[in-house]
């Protein structure tokens, strides 16, 4: 629940192709919050720099005490990210785990579309719940 997120974590999205060999400038990065009801809200719409990276984006996160002892609910906040770049398959990644005062970097490796395509189905990456998060939310 969003009223738990009284602290701030940070997200950097790093976009490249050929798995880091070629960084992609001006990739469109969209960050969404994820609520328990499954609805998402757009928080950021930014572009990457010449090294393929966004600035560190501040995101609401729960207090640090939630992740320092077991069985606390909401040890982290969850977000999803979509990356678009002309000529490449879009990628959506969720759920990202954002902790207070920690910078998380999401590496996004894009692959080119087929020669005859202008757009393609986004490649979807779904990350499971963190293994330590055994508390029921």
């Amino acid at each position, binding site marked *: 629940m969003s009223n738990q997120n009284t602290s701030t974590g940070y997200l950097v999205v790093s976009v490249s192709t050929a798995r880091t*060999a*070629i960084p992609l400038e001006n990739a469109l990065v969209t960050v969404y919050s994820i609520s328990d009801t499954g609805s998402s809200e757009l928080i950021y719409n930014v572009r990457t720099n010449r090294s393929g990276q966004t600035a560190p984006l501040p995101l609401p996160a729960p207090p640090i005490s939630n992740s320092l002892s077991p069985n606390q609910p909401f040890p982290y906040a969850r977000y999803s990210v979509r990356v678009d770049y002309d000529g490449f398959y879009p990628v959506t990644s969720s759920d990202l785990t954002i902790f207070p005062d920690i910078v998380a970097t999401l590496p996004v490796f894009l692959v080119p579309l087929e020669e005859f395509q202008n757009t393609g189905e986004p490649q979807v990456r779904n990350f499971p719940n963190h293994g330590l998060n055994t508390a029921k939310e």
Partner: protein
Amino acid sequence: MPLPFIPETITVHLGSPKSNARNVTVPFPDYIKNVASSEIYPTWPESAIRANMYAQISFALNRVYTEWYPSQGYDFDITNVTAFDQAYVHDRDIFDNISRIADELFTDYIVRSGSVEPLFAQYCNGTTVTCDGLSQWGTVPLAEQGLTPYEILTRFYGDDIEIVTDTPVVPNLGTYPGKALRLGDVNEDVRTIQLRLNRISTNYPLIPKIYPVNRAYDKSTENAVKVFQQTFGLTPDGIVGKATWYRIAYLYTAIKRLAELNSEGLSLQDVSPLYPGLLKFGDSGEAVKLMQYYLSVVGAYYSEIPVIDDDGFFGTKTQNAVIAAQKLFGLTPDGIVGEQTWNALYSAYLSIVDSDPNARTPEGIPVFPGRILIEGMSGDDVEQAQTFLSFLSSVYSEIPQIPVTGYFGEMTKDAVIAAQKLFGLNITGTIGPATWDILAREYETAVMGAKVAEQQFPGYTLQNNQEGM
């Protein structure tokens, strides 16, 4: 059994061992960063993070060292299922503090005193699951009490453990020289770093060029190192310690590989891409080589496809790569290249080649001309070799400067001998395939490293009457 080493990459099966899941092959430090980010929380005290990471590294190295899965006939090193191994979530977000620690720790592991084998360091969360090994949650209060990572580990694994440090990374990466490079140092390792950073900065132009490349760790070098460190999540102290050394090595290797594939592509561009007939394990020849080339290019973009040599021989490694590609394309993973597999491979290759986003892929470097060049010969190939040597002499003072005339005279021979000495080749004074190959690679690194992009700091200040870059 030989001594343990750090594998440059590790192949992870994304499912339980018997399942038909994909494998991914990733750099070992990246694997550890991912495991740590997936197994523990980054908010924990640093001592607890380090203790957990030693266990995670040792566990993985034990699997690699004992060849646990390959000895059972599997084509991977480890799985990402916690019932069998440890958590790994492919392409997940990585925590910067965990990343920095992993860059430092990934060459270190736990052993039982008197043993060389990396400890099979079992662990569990310590709350819903208890075990005879490290308790993940148990490390937190111990760290808060001020215990060091080693002390925390002895609590769970006993006193008779030691931590082995600075293990070599094998096979291609080279080994950290053992002493950090910093402002004021003058030596060979500094030049290696300067050349590599310049080559990396051609793809990442926010990193300024280093000029001159002269083995001296000056302000220009320190500046480039700092920007590199900032870009790749390392402590930006301007000193090339172990973590920075290996990060430079990994990135340089990736960029170089792409450049070499590009060169190879130019030499193959007249070769017909039509399906050459069935290719399978045991075959050899030009068609196999072409197929390996397409596989290599696609593999540079997909971690599912492991790296192979384009040697024209369809062996086990090639077969595994074919199977990986077939899984990727949704085809029957039988390791045989029939028409469907060939066409899917070629199509994926084409889409990559056409994608060149900013036309920044490097020009090709000519391949060995097919005749050994010796004193007295003339031709375009001699002129090309002289071009290599002439440019390299501006970087390596060991190589004398020579005029580029197209005639292989005594000066050229002296330059060849100097280059062969420098690069550890047989000193013949003639240019065969091995010498050509080294000269071409060094030239590509140096010449591409010297290319300055728009708005990139070239490493020196332009004078009033100089042309802008």
